[in-house]
């Protein structure tokens, strides 16, 4: 008999329920191993073992499939990624450009955006570094232009810097929308592109930036998947 215990469930970090499923599976198999040892001294039905193995294989396949299905995908992955050691927090320094001095347009929202992302629990920590930060944050003026840009610097496939720019021309009068734009570009500086799909996201489809102005679940999931 397979006995599945939930007593010693470890803390899990993956947002979906897949990790729980993994735990249940592995626990079940571990229990079955114990049972198998006992079965050496007992009579065993060949059919029940076959059923068990079939169930394990089917569940494993389902798990692998669902991990693919529920993964967040980028439709424009950046050319390079930050170096990141799995399980660790990568610290990234940033520097303010001359056009986002304290009190300047976008400065407050950019500061909030850095704090917003730092509080998501993703494996990055952005900290201010006087003049030599890896990420350079500034603004520019291009009437009717894009809301902003994030430009990576790549050494082969490794990111070595990012320029983040917000467009002051036509800047939204609503500070929440400016914060959404700031979170969007700071999100890119985490080394990710744009998210596919219609679920509201800062880095994807945003139906109303006055509502969705901080990182959303798909944004956090994307960074966590690319930088576990």
């Amino acid at each position, binding site marked *: 008999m397979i006995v599945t215990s939930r007593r010693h469930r470890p803390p899990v970090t993956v947002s979906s329920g897949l990790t729980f499923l993994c735990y249940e*599976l592995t626990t079940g198999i571990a229990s079955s191993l114990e049972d198998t040892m006992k079965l050496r001294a007992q*009579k065993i039905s060949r059919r029940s073992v076959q059923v068990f193995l079939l169930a394990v294989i089917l569940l494993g396949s389902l798990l692998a499939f669902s*991990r693919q299905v529920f993964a967040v995908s980028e439709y424009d992955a950046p050319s390079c990624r930050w*170096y990141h050691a799995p399980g660790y927090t990568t*610290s990234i320094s940033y520097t303010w450009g001359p056009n986002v001095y304290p009190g300047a347009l976008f400065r407050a929202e950019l500061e909030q955006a850095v704090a917003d992302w730092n509080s998501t629990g993703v494996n990055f920590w952005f900290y201010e570094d006087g003049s030599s930060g890896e990420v350079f944050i500034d603004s520019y*003026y*291009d009437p*009717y232009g894009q809301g902003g840009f994030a430009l990576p*610097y790549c050494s082969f496939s490794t990111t070595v810097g990012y320029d983040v720019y917000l467009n002051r021309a036509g800047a939204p009068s609503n500070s929440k929308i400016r914060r959404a734009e700031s979170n969007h570009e700071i999100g*890119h500086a985490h080394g990710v592109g744009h998210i596919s799909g219609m679920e509201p996201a800062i880095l994807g489809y945003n139906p109303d930036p006055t509502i969705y102005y901080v990182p959303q679940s798909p944004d956090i999931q994307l960074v966590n998947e690319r930088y576990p």
Partner: protein
Amino acid sequence: MKMQDGTYRFWPKIVTLLNFMVLLLLLVNCTVRSDKSPQASVSQNTTVPGELSEAGIGSVSAGYRTVSSIKELADIADVIVIGRATATDETVNMARDENDLARPDPNVLVVGRSYEVRVSRYLKGNGADVIYVLLREAFLGARAPKTEENIAQARRQFVQIPIDPEKQYVFFLAPRPEFGEAYFTGPKEPWRFDISDVTQVKPESPWHYASTVFPSPSLDEMIEQLGQ
């Protein structure tokens, strides 16, 4: 080998071996991480900003300012025209000095290419038979060296759809008088619609969700929406 009591002698060993293999595969796949510590930190030890010039420019991520309806687009456009466009050799820096739009930004470069548009009909506003539409095709921040090689690389990394001289479009435009009397650009995305097939007017935009938000109406329906 079947034993006298009806069980198989080697079967438990085989089951144990298979179980170990499945368990190992699942553990590798599941990546249940219980060892994550918020204090764990690794600093980037890559290129210092002064050496960014040696790094390559990666794919730029743009954050678009968008509209969600033809009506909204028509309201913010000063001019709406139907016409065909041909690229010219003229390029300008669309990033400007905020205090004097006649002067380009000395540090940021937003390369805009000029397209000559032969207007067949004005749907809103009026003006010359030939106007110029500027299309952004590269971005370089203050830290990026503005070498020819870098600008060419930035062009390659920039997401934009060139205007097709074979197609007829409806252009929603806003003036950029600092470049000349008849110079325009799109006010927000999407700002041009392919009307090659008048039964299906399609937005042509680097904004990923343009075709989702703007399902293809007929040209007559679009013109009707302009008047509402």
